[in-house]
């Protein structure tokens, strides 16, 4: 489809918490790449579902439809886990329907958050890579050729580890990430592309799981970010959560039933989302949950009530706006236009409050879901050499520093400094003959190192043995245009480049990413049967263990012969799974067994409703 073979195809990808999109721009401008065979209008849910029986991986709308049926093997909102340690996301992970576990890191005292699906563990970038892989496939279908380069957007307030994790995801998916662009900056690019007049604008970007505000000066094709602020754990998901919490509380009070089962929670999550979306156009919306046994939870939610629920979250975004304005040394009235980006800005209350803060009506004419991907595509066309008339000048969202003696944060680069930026700091040794120096690199605005985020330990090795204090090692910290840190060290006396070993605090090591990249290629070719067998055996273990639990609790409600048949079938299935190599047979027997447990499940459900779960 491209006319000029010398111009590489670089796609623009908005890798969102809830939805992901891919776009491409040529000299005529950006457009969304839509797969006509998939019914999602180019807005693909960032959901990955694993079928343990067939080993099949589904991505997008179909995967999202699996969420209620297969809550444990359907992974969504993985962006919230990117570049995070388990301890960072422990609270949040408990609310997700799938299993997030702690994995010890190679670094002492550090851990990683991994996702358990059947017998396998996936690091968050691995899941994101599956989402990216699907978008890559769409682009390849569109162009009829391989696509290997992409610009991927991230929340402006993402720290180094989260950016690295995003880049790792691209690499695992077989995409060279030629540029990481901040989402609000990409949106500004799409907004300002055809505007000639100079302006100061604010981008208010409230997505599914993240919030950013960026203030930019637009002039003659230059998009200059003056300041940015945000919260990487605040978004439309939290609005859904408010409605969910209300329903869970009231159902418990009215019916004495606790909504805990992953499948029910998933269903409730989707209902809550529908209510939120409905309330954008209607003054009230009915929330209905069928609890079985003729019991219905019905609740009318008024817009005003919903607004009260989400008020604290919206106020937090406004505080961020205030911080960004202060950093830019601007007043609300200095902003010519406030651009609303992200699906959550469809909520009228959000628009109203943002309008009140800036004293003007927010600009809502852009499609808030698509604009980031469009901007990414425009930037991709700049990098591909298609256009040279626009220039993005962005800033680093967080201060960068090092841990100094006494556990303080010594700032080297301040938040809102234009990138690329670099600073060189001199280090020396404390002991005679010391040949290595450790540097703990931090990001954040707090005074103490422990309150900031450690990006990892940089160990300078091969320092020539000398009396303490004599070696002089210049360490250069460079934050590149992607907002990603690069470190170089030079020993002054010897002039030798000192070696640096980077131990990422929460991310994957380079070797791990490489291995995943290779594995994903091998995985595609490898004999699936072995995998399928392992997964099936685990599924048998899981399903039968669950059945045993329910039998123990509610088995007395079944007829004696029915119970006996079920227990025999359970035993037979376990034996078969242990001895047989025939995956199809195990699969058929597992299906049969699961059908047999339906009366048991019904009995359990009705007794739960009668007594309430303890």
């Amino acid at each position, binding site marked *: 489809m491209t006319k000029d073979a010398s111009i590489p195809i670089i796609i623009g990808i908005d890798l969102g918490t809830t939805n992901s999109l891919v776009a491409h721009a040529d000299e005529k401008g950006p457009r969304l790449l839509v797969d006509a065979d998939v019914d999602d209008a180019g807005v693909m849910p960032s959901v990955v579902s694993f079928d343990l029986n067939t080993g099949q991986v589904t991505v997008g709308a179909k995967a999202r439809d699996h969420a209620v049926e297969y809550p444990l093997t359907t992974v969504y909102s993985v962006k919230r886990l990117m570049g995070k340690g388990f301890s960072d996301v422990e609270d949040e992970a408990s609310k997700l329907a799938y299993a997030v576990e702690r994995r010890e890191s190679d670094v002492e005292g550090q851990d990683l958050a991994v996702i358990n699906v059947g017998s396998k563990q996936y690091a968050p970038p691995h899941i994101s890579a599956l989402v990216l892989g699907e978008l890559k496939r769409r682009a390849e279908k569109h162009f009829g050729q391989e696509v290997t380069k992409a610009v991927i957007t991230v929340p402006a307030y993402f720290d180094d580890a989260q950016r690295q994790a995003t880049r790792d995801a691209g690499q695992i998916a077989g995409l060279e990430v*030629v*540029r990481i662009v901040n989402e609000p900056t990409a949106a500004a690019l799409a907004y300002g592309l055809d505007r000639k007049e100079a302006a100061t604008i604010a981008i208010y970007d409230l997505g599914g799981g993240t919030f950013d505000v960026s203030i930019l000066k637009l*002039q*003659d094709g*230059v998009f*200059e970010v003056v300041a940015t602020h945000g919260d990487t754990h605040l978004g439309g998901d939290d609005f859904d959560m408010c409605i969910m919490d209300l329903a869970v509380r009231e159902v418990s009070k009215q019916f004495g039933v606790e909504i805990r089962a992953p499948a029910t929670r998933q269903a409730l999550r989707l209902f809550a989302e529908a209510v939120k979306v409905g309330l954008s156009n209607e003054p009230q919306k009915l929330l209905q949950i069928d609890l079985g046994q003729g019991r219905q939870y019905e609740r009318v939610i008024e817009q005003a009530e919903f607004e009260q629920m989400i008020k604290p979250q919206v106020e937090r975004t406004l505080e961020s706006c*205030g911080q960004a304005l*202060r950093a830019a040394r601007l007043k609300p009235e200095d902003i010519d236009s406030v651009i609303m980006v992200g699906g959550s800005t469809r909520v009228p209350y959000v628009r109203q409050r943002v309008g009140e803060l800036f004293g003007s009506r927010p600009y809502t004419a852009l499609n808030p879901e698509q604009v980031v991907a469009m901007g990414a595509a425009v*930037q991709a066309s*700049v*990098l*591909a*050499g298609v256009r*040279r008339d626009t*220039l*993005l*000048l962005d800033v680093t969202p967080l201060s960068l520093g090092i841990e100094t003696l006494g556990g303080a944060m010594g700032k080297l680069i301040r938040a809102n*400094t*234009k*990138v*690329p*930026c*670099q600073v060189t700091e001199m280090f020396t040794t404390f002991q005679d003959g010391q040949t290595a120096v450790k540097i703990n690199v931090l990001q954040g605005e707090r005074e103490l190192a422990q309150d900031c985020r450690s990006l990892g330990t940089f160990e300078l090795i091969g320092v020539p043995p000398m009396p303490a204090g004599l070696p002089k090692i210049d360490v250069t910290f*460079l934050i*590149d*245009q992607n907002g990603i840190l690069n470190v170089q060290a030079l020993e002054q006396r010897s002039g030798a480049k000192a070696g640096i070993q980077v131990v990422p605090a929460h991310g994957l090591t380079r070797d791990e990413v490489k291995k995943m990249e290779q594995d994903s290629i091998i995985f595609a070719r490898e004999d699936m049967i072995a995998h399928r067998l392992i997964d099936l055996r685990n599924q048998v273990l899981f399903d039968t263990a669950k059945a045993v639990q329910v039998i123990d609790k509610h088995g007395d409600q079944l007829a004696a012969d029915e119970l006996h048949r079920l227990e025999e079938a359970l035993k037979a299935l376990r034996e078969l799974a242990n001895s047989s190599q025939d995956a199809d047979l195990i699969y058929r027997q597992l299906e049969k067994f699961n059908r047999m447990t339906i009366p048991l499940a019904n009995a359990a459900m009705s007794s739960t409703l009668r007594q309430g779960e303890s």
Partner: protein
Amino acid sequence: MSSQDISVPVKCLDCRCELETPIVCTGCHKLYPLSMDMDYFSLFQIPRRYRIDVGELRHKFLSISRNVHPDFFGAASDDMKDLSVHLSAELNEALRVLIDPVMRAGYLLELSGGTSASQDRSVPQDVLMDAMELREQLEESSPDPVVLASIKEAVDRRRNALLAAIGDAAEKLDDGAEATQVQLRQLINSVKYFDNLLADLPAG
């Protein structure tokens, strides 16, 4: 010591265009590594003095950025990519220092052979007393908006007076008087006390 003393190519070695800045040819985008003795003023090709045209500085910054930013070197060799990243970082730092009046004065002071902030942290006694008194007022009367407004006004007034004095002293640096250097260092150090006060005033 003026920018004319520094030896930089006047014409691009490749396309023979006139160079608007010593780090890049705006005609053919050839990049030139930064020489060690080049100061920020010569980077932008503007006169080396305190009173500068900020509009012109910004204009030049954007124009040079258009030619050195790494986004335009996607297809270049790795060496060129690296060079564009480092030159952009240098350019950003140069703008950061020159656009801020206090940092610009400090930079000129060091260029003229004066002390850096880490070498001389001294502040005139009367400024110190003044700042401490304002801080006491701030701590005692925090919730009262009227008092807060008057404190803010007092801080702003002192800060503006300091800036004016800094400007006058910085413009006199070329005379080479050591007394001017010492005075300028103290004035620059003083600003920080009032900046901290402003930062601790409640927003609004």
